[in-house]
């Protein structure tokens, strides 16, 4: 406890005592609020907790000890690319020149950040084989929305209003269909073939005058490179649709496959995956979008431009009339983009290729090591990740994927992504990334093998796991049925607030 063994921690509210805290900011004059009419004022101060700095720090340090993290362990989370987050990048983003810059500061005061953004757009354009890039989207999903809105704007601009559908493979990430809906499209799912690729014939059948775009993830969320990618792109374009590439899995193919060059019209990058900005417990990330010539006019604004004299500026309102407009306030998750820029500059071209090589090598190595103990539904060379399955294990022993995942916790590992992609039963999606040592990969594979063996021998221990975590499995059903989404200081306890 307290640095020895993590223990559960009371809430900030339970730690609060009236009269604690203070000393952070000067006390304003008594009449400071004289200008605010009484009816606009709060009648009672918000019931925020009162703590002194020592308690605040201890609270959060102890909470931090309840977390798993890349800095302390291996995250084989498929589709998430949980690679190591370089420390220089944390330093860089906090440089006062970057951190203290107001987004509405006149351009003359912002030349450093503007230059960085301008250069980063070009670095990403080269990596994606794209013509132009916007850095505004705050995450991959917002990148998707931006991309699909551009596709929509393009068809509208052509006067083609009949395209009401967006096609996604059944293995796609949930954000793809959700994006299509947000962009006002109907989603059509197409199935995978026996090798895990998109079924070309089904796709051809689904394509038509009513399809605005096809969203593909390549390598797919099964960790497989679409071998028929050329035929697929040809079919999409033949139908007058646009090809959207979900670039979340770009870590597998840096310098080996450039979506834009290959024929994709638009793609997003997940900088919090491929370019190693930290996940922060769920965010922030950034989801830049690259486009080819066709979609460039529709990019959201304002873009960063370089003037003839080498200074950088933002697009003026109305300078690019076909733009889909803003997708957020200001210029993007700039602090995250600084980290991505640093990451790319630290690697250079050959370095980024080596990233992909090592990521792919590691995934195939783990696949080879656990084959046999687990099903490998698509047992071919994978890219950065692969799907395993506990289907046979479950049939033999009753031990499910969920149990294997929870038992991994006892071995000191974060579980892989489970039950995704949806198309594989009892799926375990495993992505080792390039930043884990061979020793770690071996230890992880050994743990999976040991669990499979244990499932045969002593399934109860597996199905009741985890045993070593600060908490056991959570009663999620009750949590959803009787949601308690906030502490209620008035009630002074963990009962939901009275209405």
């Amino acid at each position: 406890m307290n640095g020895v063994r993590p223990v559960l921690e009371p809430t900030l509210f339970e730690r609060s005592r009236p009269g604690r805290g203070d000393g952070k900011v000067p006390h304003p004059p008594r009449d400071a609020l004289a200008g605010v009419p009484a009816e606009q004022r709060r009648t009672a101060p918000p019931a925020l907790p009162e703590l002194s700095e020592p308690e605040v720090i201890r609270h959060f340090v102890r909470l931090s000890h309840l977390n798993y993290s890349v800095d302390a362990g291996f995250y084989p989370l498929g589709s998430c690319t949980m690679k190591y987050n370089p420390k220089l990048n944390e330093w860089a983003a906090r440089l006062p020149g970057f951190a203290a810059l107001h987004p509405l500061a006149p351009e003359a005061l912002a030349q450093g950040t503007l230059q960085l953004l301008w250069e980063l757009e070009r670095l990403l354009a080269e990596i994606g084989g794209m013509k132009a890039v916007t850095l505004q989207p705050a995450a991959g999903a917002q990148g998707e929305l931006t991309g699909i809105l551009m596709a929509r704007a393009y068809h509208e601009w052509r006067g083609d209003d009949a395209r009401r559908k967006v096609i996604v493979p059944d293995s796609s990430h949930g954000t793809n269909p959700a994006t299509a809906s947000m962009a006002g499209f109907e989603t059509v799912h197409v199935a995978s073939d026996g090798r895990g690729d998109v079924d070309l014939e089904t796709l051809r059948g689904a394509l038509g005058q009513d399809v605005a775009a096809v969203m593909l993830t390549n390598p797919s969320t099964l960790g497989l490179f679409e071998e028929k990618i050329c035929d697929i792109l040809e079919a999409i374009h033949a139908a007058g649709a646009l090809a959207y590439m979900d670039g979340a899995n770009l870590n597998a193919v840096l310098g080996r496959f450039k979506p834009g060059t290959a024929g994709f019209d638009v793609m997003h990058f997940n900088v919090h995956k491929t370019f190693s900005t930290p996940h922060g417990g769920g965010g922030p990330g950034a989801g830049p979008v690259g486009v080819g010539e066709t979609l460039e006019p529709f990019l959201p604004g304002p873009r960063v431009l370089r003037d003839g004299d080498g200074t950088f500026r933002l697009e003026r309102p109305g300078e690019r009339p076909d733009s889909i407009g803003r997708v957020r306030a200001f210029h993007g998750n700039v602090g995250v983009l600084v980290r991505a820029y640093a990451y790319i500059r630290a690697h250079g071209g050959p370095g980024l290729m080596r990233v992909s090589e090592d990521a792919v090598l590691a995934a195939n190595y783990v696949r080879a090591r656990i084959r046999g103990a687990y099903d490998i539904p698509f047992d071919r060379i994978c890219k950065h990740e692969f799907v395993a399955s506990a289907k046979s294990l479950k049939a033999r022993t009753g031990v499910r994927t969920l149990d294997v995942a929870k038992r991994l916790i006892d071995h000191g590992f974060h579980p892989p992504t489970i039950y995704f992609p949806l198309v594989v039963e009892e799926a375990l999606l495993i992505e080792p990334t390039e930043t884990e040592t061979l020793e770690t990969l071996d230890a992880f594979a050994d743990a999976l093998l040991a669990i499979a063996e244990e499932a045969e021998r002593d399934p109860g221990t597996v199905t009741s796991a985890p045993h070593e975590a600060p908490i056991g499995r959570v009663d999620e059903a009750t949590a959803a049925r009787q949601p308690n989404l906030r502490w209620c200081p008035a009630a002074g306890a963990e009962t939901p607030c009275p209405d």
Partner: protein
Amino acid sequence: MPYQPHTPDDRARMLATLGLTSVDELFEEIPPAVRARGLDLPSALSEAELSRELERLAARNRTDLVSFLGAGVYRHFIPAAVDEVLRRGEFYTAYTPYQPELSQGTLQTIYEYQSLLAELTGLDVVSASHYDGATATAEAALMTVRATRRGRILVSRAVHPHYRETLRTYVHPTGFTVEELPVVATGPAAGTTDLAALEAALAVDAAPVAGVLIAQPNLYGLLEPMADASRVAHAAGALFVAVVEPVSLAVLAPPGAYGADVAAGEGQPLGIAPQYGGPYLGILAATEALMRQVPGRLVGLARDLEGRRAYVMTLRAREQDIRRERAASNICTNQALCALAATVYLATLGPHGLRDVAAGGAARARELEVTLAAAGAPRLHPGPYLNEFAVRVPDAPDAHARLLEDGILAGVPLATLEPGRADVAGALLVCATEVTTGDEIARFGAALRSLLASPAAAGVRS
């Protein structure tokens, strides 16, 4: 390799296990026609070189001016405790807390964030975070559409223009409509949302309104008649969305108190650095009635099977990974670490500290008002404000540029923030916070006075 541990020997062993001889074999299924052969990027830099390059870029920015710039992003003192917590690898290198057994730290901080924001907003359901104030506002508008099954959204023109633009981008493809409510042109309410226009817009029976969006304080720093607007909106069966600034909620009536159904806003003032625009924190809060319309993650307090308190992501059926095309939103990655910053910030300041921040800004703003008026720049609007207001300055954009030369960032010319709006073109929007000093205000006043006294100010130059 900067961050990869694999030695040639490691690689050879892995290849051997796979029965391969070269890594190229791992990429053979990429059709030759689309196989790329490298990347044309600047060469790799060592950490020492890269750090120097980044320092050089950062130094090209200038953040040392005396600044009165707000307009949606505010300079506040950030206690050192905030970054101390954020820098912990256990927080910033953790993944989304899908596995509660390994994520109680992140989950509890999110639950605490939700609880703190519920206190501030007076609304019970708070999303774990959205991208920023603008997207949170857009999602709030879409919530009103889903909840009311109506198709018209009314937004005050005194909501930040970036928010209105984002709202249009988000709503456009859905086929619903966004209409802007004008602001009062003259009189004591000048610069606030025109309630008569609101009532008129709500009265169109054929096209019932889903939601009414008004900002408090509004774009011009003015306090809006939120209670009246909320009542009028509800009377017409519409939902009311307050676009709020969280520090102000330490002293202003919370959205819950005036009946708002949803509150959206930018959480940057809660301990997050300006960073030229992000990452920030989209605040989204709603009444319990709207719980299932809230997009994005929610964390609930639960029990593990042994009865221990345990936090967990809950009501997941709203989310894209479960519901796919029927999800409430496509949001996946959010701004969790920024929510943590806000949580630590609020925990460190407490209710009294936060009140001091808000009131300290208000006090400085009144000092600024007096100083600028004396220098020849009176307020544009007469109504009450908290810590931001617009002043009339002859040839405002030019004056702004010339004050820069004196090292003063005189807020933002409304002409650049809202181009084409004659009523505000001659004004600067200025703000003060608790970090503004009396000395800074005096310098601004003096520079403005001498500027307005010089012939150029009369429009000779520009």
